[in-house]
């Protein structure tokens, strides 16, 4: 649109006027001013430490009084004052006490604190003399008199150092001297406690030196492990190093860190409000007054801020305060000299993970299946797996394409995966397996089922079945795949494709397979067992069986048992779709939708127990009696399933019974409100709570079981009861309610702050029973001439506390009764805290972390609950935990996760609900089923689990 001049004039005036009238809010101004002032003060402080006294007013032009004299002092100390003025000032300080002090203080500040003690020891005359000389020179005799003191002091210091060295040796810096300035553009300073020095390229600096960039200056520092820190202008940091790795304390400003590979250590960056842990990656940390912002250029970092843990990947950003705007990562790093390179890296690395996860659709919930009805009646075991093959293979292919296109990315990927010289071989192996997985995935339907029946001998007859997408091409594909597998496994694979089931004899294995059997038997002595693991299914058996594959009617079936295949054929032919109870139950599972299901028909397995276990008649009788007594002979089905929703995955295990639960199986009561949780604070590290049916009934069940199974044990208990005069059922169990909780709530060291809470109906009787038990114990101890136990009663805040303690045993047992509960803990203080927690109403159930970890659902109650949140606890024991963890390395990835890392610190909850005829146990997890996505399977950063690791384990490589 063409604008005429007048319009433009008006528009300009309007815009200018709007700028003129822009008014920030008064509150913002005052907030900003307070922050700026605080920073100025900090700056002034460090400037004083630098002995650069610049803050006072310029020297007065005309000296009128003390104030003016004092403005002259700094110049005087720097010997910058004219002789006439110096004389005037010296004369004045001789007479004026206030100015003399002011002068002395300035000199102290200039000379550092170290000299102060000497100065204070000087006499008044000496001080005057010293100030007269305008330079603090201690008199010779005075120095001599201090030599002895210095010797003693030096000896003490040396002794302390030696002791400290001995104690802290494990934590001592590994290489304090190897940190240097890689490049400096502009003014860079090293600020130590007593001096400040400019730093230039190549200079070294020590741990705990504060390194500061001036305005308009940038610098790159190199740490001893090779990590590079790029500092923006007006930034300040100090580096600590110990055995767990280096920590960069970012005091202010912004840095970009290119972390070197850390091995089993971590590199940390600490700001006032966040802790960042990395293993080897590139990221930016911006620490401002309002908050800190962490942006990742490449790889993955863990951020712990305000008690919350985040995992950030390339291109992602986190601020420590909500409300702090995020800016594009590219903009966040735009000040860097390497900004262009980072931007390129960012664009690439960021893309891969997100792209792969976004473009590859994970198999969703399945609501129906054709496979279930094909499994034989009498199936006792069934697994429904999603077909991950295509997703996974596709993800791998995309990753390979990306790597081929971008050499920078390929280098990074190499770095991610390269640990030893055999890696190229491993890469090739992964590639081969991925190709297989992908090829099979593309041929099969969206589900693969494994089922098993029990044959006459109680041996399982497994069957693998799946739909085939392209029935015509599958036969050809299969033949090709078998050939490939044979060539890869030196002919150890013995698979036979069957066309006509009625015309196959079990007893005549083909020649190829016979050879394979012989060869493998000969080999097996030379081969270690771990290597056997990597062979295909049939090889896992001691005597290799042939695997029969039958393709029919759009399905593929595979089994080592021809009978299993014939059952399927019969079922297909008859069109019989009647389902037994197990099939019905599984059909229910599918109706609700499932990603993964594993089910076992426990009732049928139990019914066949004689055939399976082959026990003697007597053993069998005992076993049956015990099963009946415990109520476990009523077990019906076990169903484990995983259901995926947008936000989380529910992993659910259900154990069902034929009728109402009996015996031990019925101990867990129906879901109920748990008042015991009210005594546990929101900061608890661990809490578990459960409701049971009446404890007296539990004792009855226990005794009844013992009577049948271990009559001797029961006799012993009864004798003990008679001796002590305490009846377990009447005096102990009957006093208790049905609710129990246990927690670790407080410090873990030196002794864990445990807490036990139990519902009590008859507190007086329970206390009396406990007193009687202590009395009985004392009788026995006295007989052995040992000091006894005592129960101390104390009152505090209207509550009665009981402490059971022993003279020669340092651990106490404290308990009290409150609101129908017994609370026990190792100290009275912990009990008092538990009561406070209950009274305040601010307990675990109010904790946001606890609530967030609980599942959504209609039933507010549980039968049993388990919660862990060791995030805070690990900090206190980190130095020890880290060292212990290094010894054992049971995880898949080398050196991680260690307890001391801020890794895997997400609070978790598992819970159980017991109903009349079943118990449901559930453990929700975030992300995908069991935390698996295509990208994680491929081992892209951000995963604790990767296909390559599995391969590594499987192939037995180190």
């Amino acid at each position, binding site marked *: 649109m063409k604008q005429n001049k007048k319009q433009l004039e008006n528009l300009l005036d309007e815009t200018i006027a709007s700028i*003129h009238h822009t008014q*920030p809010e008064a509150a913002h101004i*005052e907030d900003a*001013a307070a922050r700026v002032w605080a920073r100025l003060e900090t700056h002034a*402080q460090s*400037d004083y430490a630098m002995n650069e006294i610049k803050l006072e007013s310029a020297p007065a032009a005309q000296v009128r009084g003390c104030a003016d004299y004092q403005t002259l002092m700094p110049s005087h100390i720097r010997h910058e004052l004219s002789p006439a003025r110096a004389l005037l000032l010296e004369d004045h300080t001789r007479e004026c006490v206030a100015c003399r002090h002011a002068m002395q203080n300035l000199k102290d500040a200039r000379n550092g604190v170290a000299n102060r003690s000497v100065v204070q020891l000087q006499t008044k005359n000496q001080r005057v003399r010293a100030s007269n000389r305008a330079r603090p020179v201690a008199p010779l005799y005075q120095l001599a008199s201090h030599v002895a003191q210095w010797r003693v002091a030096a000896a003490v210091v040396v002794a302390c150092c030696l002791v400290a060295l001995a104690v802290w040796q494990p934590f001592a810096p590994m290489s304090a001297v190897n940190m240097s300035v890689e490049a400096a553009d502009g003014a860079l300073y090293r600020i130590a406690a007593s001096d400040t020095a400019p730093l230039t390229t190549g200079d070294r600096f020590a741990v705990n030196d504060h390194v500061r960039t001036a*305005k308009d200056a940038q610098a790159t520092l190199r740490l001893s492990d090779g990590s590079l820190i790029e500092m923006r202008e007006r930034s300040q940091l100090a580096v600590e190093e110990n055995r767990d790795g280096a920590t960069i304390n970012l005091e202010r400003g912004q840095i970009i860190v290119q972390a070197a590979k850390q091995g089993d250590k971590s590199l940390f960056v600490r700001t006032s409000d966040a802790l960042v842990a990395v293993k080897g990656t590139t990221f930016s940390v911006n620490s401002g007054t309002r908050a800190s912002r962490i942006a990742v250029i490449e790889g993955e970092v863990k951020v712990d801020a305000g008690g919350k843990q985040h995992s950030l990947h390339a291109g992602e950003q986190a601020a420590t305060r909500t409300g702090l705007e995020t800016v594009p990562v590219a903009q966040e790093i735009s000040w860097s000299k390497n900004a262009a390179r980072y931007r390129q890296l960012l664009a690439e690395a960021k893309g891969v993970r997100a792209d792969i996860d976004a473009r590859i659709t994970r198999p969703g919930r399945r609501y129906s299946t054709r496979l279930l009805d094909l499994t034989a009646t009498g199936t006792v075991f069934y697994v429904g797996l999603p077909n991950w093959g295509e997703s996974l293979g596709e993800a791998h292919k995309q990753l390979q394409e990306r790597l081929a296109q971008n050499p920078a990315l390929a280098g990074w990927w190499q770095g991610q995966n390269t640990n030893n010289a055999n890696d190229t071989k491993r890469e090739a192996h992964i590639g081969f397996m991925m190709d297989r997985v992908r090829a099979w995935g593309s041929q099969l339907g969206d589900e693969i089922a494994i089922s098993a029946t029990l044959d006459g001998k109680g041996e399982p007859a497994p069957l693998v079945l799946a739909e085939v997408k392209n029935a015509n091409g599958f036969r050809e594909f299969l033949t090709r795949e078998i050939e490939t597998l044979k060539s890869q496994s030196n002919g150890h694979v013995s698979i036979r494709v069957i066309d006509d089931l009625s015309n196959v004899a079990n007893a005549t294995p083909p020649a190829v397979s016979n050879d394979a059997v012989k060869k493998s038997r000969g080999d097996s002595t030379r081969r270690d067992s771990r290597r056997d693991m990597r062979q295909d299914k049939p090889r896992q058996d001691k005597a290799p069986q042939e695997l029969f594959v039958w393709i029919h009617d759009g399905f593929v079936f595979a089994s080592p048992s021809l009978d299993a295949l014939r059952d399927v054929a019969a079922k297909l032919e008859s069109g019989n779709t009647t389902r037994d109870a197990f099939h019905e139950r599984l059909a229910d599972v599918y109706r609700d939708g499932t990603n993964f299901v594993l089910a076992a028909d426990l009732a049928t397995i139990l019914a066949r127990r004689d055939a399976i276990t082959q026990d003697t008649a007597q053993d069998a009788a005992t076993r049956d009696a015990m099963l009946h007594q415990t109520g476990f002979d009523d077990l019906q089905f076990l169903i484990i399933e995983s259901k995926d929703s947008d936000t989380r995955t529910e992993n659910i295990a259900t154990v069902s019974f034929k009728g109402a639960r009996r015996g031990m199986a019925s101990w867990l009561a129906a879901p109920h409100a748990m008042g015991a949780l009210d005594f546990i604070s929101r900061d608890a590290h661990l809490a578990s709570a459960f409701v049971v049916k009446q404890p007296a009934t539990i004792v009855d069940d226990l005794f009844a079981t013992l009577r049948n199974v271990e009559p001797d044990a029961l006799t012993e208990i009864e004798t003990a009861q008679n001796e002590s005069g305490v009846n377990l059922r009447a005096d102990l169990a009957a006093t208790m309610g049905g609710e129990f909780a246990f927690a670790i709530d407080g410090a873990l060291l030196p002794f864990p702050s445990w807490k036990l809470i139990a519902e009590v109906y008859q507190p007086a009787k329970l206390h009396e029973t406990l007193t009687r038990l202590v009395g009985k114990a004392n009788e026995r101890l006295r007989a052995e001439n040992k000091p006894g136990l005592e129960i101390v009663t104390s009152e505090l805040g209207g509550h009665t506390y009981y402490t059971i303690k022993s003279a020669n045993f340092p651990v106490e047992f404290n308990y009290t009764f409150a609101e129908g509960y017994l609370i026990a803990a190792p100290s009275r203080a912990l009990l008092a805290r538990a009561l406070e927690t209950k009274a305040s109403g601010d307990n675990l159930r109010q904790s946001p972390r606890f609530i967030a970890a609980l599942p959504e659902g209609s039933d507010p109650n549980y039968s049993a609950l388990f919660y862990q949140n060791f995030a805070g606890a690990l900090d206190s024991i980190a130095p020890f935990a880290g060292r212990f963890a290094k010894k054992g390395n049971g995880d898949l990835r080398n050196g991680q996760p260690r307890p001391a890392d801020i890794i895997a610190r997400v609070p978790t909850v598992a819970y159980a609900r017991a109903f009349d005829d079943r118990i449901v146990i559930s453990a929700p997890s975030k992300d995908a089923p069991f935390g698996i996505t295509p990208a994680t399977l491929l081992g892209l950063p951000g995963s604790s689990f990767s296909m390559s690791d599995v391969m590594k384990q499987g192939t037995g490589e180190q």
Partner: protein
Amino acid sequence: MDVINTFALEAAAPHKHAAARFEFARPAMEHAPPTTLETMFREHHALVYRTAYRITGSRTDAEDVLQTIFLRLMQSSEKPDTRDLNLRAEAYLCRAAINASLDLMRARGRASFVAFDDTDEAQWVKDSALNPEARHESIELRNVIRRTLAEMSARTAEVFALRYFEGYGNAEIARALDISPLVVGVQLHRARVRLQNELKKFLES
């Protein structure tokens, strides 16, 4: 009295109430900045902040400018006589704020300035009575003005900001900068022409 002092005091007057309420949460410190600087900060921080905010349109930048100026004062070895400075503090700080803000924007450069989305001002415009398109355009237009100012010569930009953002008269500016009123007039005219051209370019793009 010096004219510059007069205008400076007048200019600062509306903000005095804010300064009077200002309370420093100051911990006891052995080496605190001396009183002169503290007093100056106490009395004039709002002036500096507002001035910087007008030019940068960003709270973060305004805060940076406030810090830069007082840090510079703290560290300056050739600073003017304090008593003298105190008398002319407002005029000095106003100009310092303008120049520091312009420096900041120059350093940021053209590209990133465009990308800079200032939510503070977005909020301010949202609260005004404009419709959404007008709001957006209003922010864009201001950014055009600010960006162009950062690209002009330092002196011209300073003169323009003093005249139009801070509302000083040509004669006052001339005295403050020690140039002739005629030069002030010429520079303001040039600046306006340039800004109109930039607005035109923006509207046509």
